[in-house]
């Protein structure tokens, strides 16, 4: 059973068993504008919660994407290299950024669920 949670940096994380998939939310994608380039982490890279994991660029801005929890990157969405527009078209599906294993699933549990995230976005 997969579960999706959210960070206050507008990343979503979907946990399927031991593997987590990470991307940016619709709200983030809309704020960024047209995505033109994505810099993805290499497999094997270890990340900490809140540490820089990827970079997403629009024409006028470059934003860091932070790892939602600590762990190791297992793969990245190579399709984004040729078609960064996927991030705008389907940010919470086909526009995913990278997959990782989590060192501590407890960190995942601490993140916001979709209701809490929706409230968070409203408050901004």
């Amino acid at each position, binding site marked *: 059973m997969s579960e999706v949670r959210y960070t206050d940096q507008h990343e979503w994380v979907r946990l399927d068993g031991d593997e987590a998939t990470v991307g940016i939310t619709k709200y983030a994608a809309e704020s960024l504008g*047209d995505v*033109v*380039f994505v810099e993805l982490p290499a497999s094997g890279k270890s990340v900490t919660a809140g540490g820089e994991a990827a970079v997403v*660029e629009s*024409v*006028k801005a470059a934003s860091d994407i932070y790892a939602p929890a600590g762990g190791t990157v297992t793969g990245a969405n190579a399709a984004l290299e040729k078609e*960064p*527009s996927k991030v705008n078209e389907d940010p919470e599906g086909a526009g995913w950024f990278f997959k990782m294993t989590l060192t501590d699933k407890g960190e995942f549990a601490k993140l916001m669920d979709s209701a809490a995230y929706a409230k968070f976005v409203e408050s901004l």
Partner: protein
Amino acid sequence: MSMNNQGRPSSAGEAFPASIATISGDRGLDHEEALIFELGHGATGVDLPDVKISDARLGGVRRKAAIGLPGLSEPEVIRHYVRLSRMNYAIDAGLYPLGSCTMKHNPRLNEKMARLPGFGDLHPLAPQSTTQGALELISQLMNWLTTLTGMPAVAMSPKAGAHGELCGLLAIRAAIAARGENRKRILVPESAHGTNPATAAFAGFTVDEVPAKPNGHVDAEALKAKLGPDVAAIMLTNPNTCGLFEGEIIEIAKAVHDAGAYFYCDGANFNAIAGKVRPGDLGIDAMHINLHKTFSTPHGGGGPGAGPVVLSHRLSAYAPVPLLVADGAGLRLIEDQTAVPQGARPFGRMCAFHGQMGMFTRALTYMLSHGRDGVRQASEDAVLSANYILASLKDVMSAPFGDGPCMHEALFDDSFLEGTGVTTLDFAKAMIDEGYHPMTMYFPLVVHGAMLIEPTESESKASLDRFIHVLHGLATEARAKKTERFAGAPHLAPRRRLDETAAARKPVLRWKPEPIKAAAE
């Protein structure tokens, strides 16, 4: 009397619809222009003899393949570039309200002086006995810069403002190393121009951001709290990028020095205070001066610039080579880092040769033309004009710091556009249709949808009034949610809005020849 029966009508005649599709694709004086590669046809714009040479002394590296450059005659080349030029806005043609860029008039005398053969046709490595006039020019310019800033020394070689920032930070780095210390942190306000943190990182430091207060000034208390034995320097712009003079600057400088750190001042906004305030009296250690801003050397579509850096006693020893010295024989450039005068410890060299001489000539001509009284008057007029704009527009636009006077630039934000459906970008693009280059947009980052307007002292009151009238009109319409002129603006420029997304997703950065089609068709 004999009558001329060959007259022709001279009234305006019937008005046809304004836009007719033309056969050429051009529109009156607005010509479309192809790429030089598409126009080339094997002609030539120069007459050079066809000399045959042997390969014997070419090291076996003679070019075998053609380069692929287009060939055109002189009339075709001139027409090409004249047509391109006509697609550009320019200060000579209209007001450029770009904040922090100081788009002032570029005096033509400056161009004439820079082209005197004694300056323009002079080799940097010619024997120094043959270049004394050039060295004297540099010396005079150095005197103007140090006198106007109240600083003891100036490094002339940096090629632009950002290059000057690097020079200043490298001098600071050298000074710290000379003390045997290791300070890695540089404090930079969040309102700073991007070159500040970029340069700090380039010079090997880590950047620590200092917040701005709600009134647009740097938070001096927060700044002082961040000082410590690992802080190398602060980088402040004064007047700051919100167009305000940092009144606490002397206290800040003292705190910085007490903490063993250095004070770098970004001199981009010197046009507000030149001839009126000396940065040296404020306690700064280094400041680059953008000759292409404050001292009128032309912006040239993006360059060249020049960024000499004035230095305090704490830093002057570390100025990079070349150093200009006077001895019995005259003036002399010292280029050898090991042959510098006693006490000099240059951190290295910023670039080949001596600096942007072409810009020095223009800047000194400007200074001699204005004199100290003219420089002072220019600063006062620049500040007066910006305040006139602020006072005239703050009722209809939103000025976050509009309660008090500004310096040479006035800052507005997009609060007045809230709920109208018009963004800062739309507003700016609509200015293009009105015949104006937009102001600086979305900078500084400390206010939302920033619009930074710097008129400079070169605008007449009539020009300012006209500008104010247009902006007043645009703001009024936007607030009334009459969005037609804003949506999809500009409508009247040589190009409509351009697809910057496509340009970034699939970069096409050069012309490429079409593959040659097969002969049989």
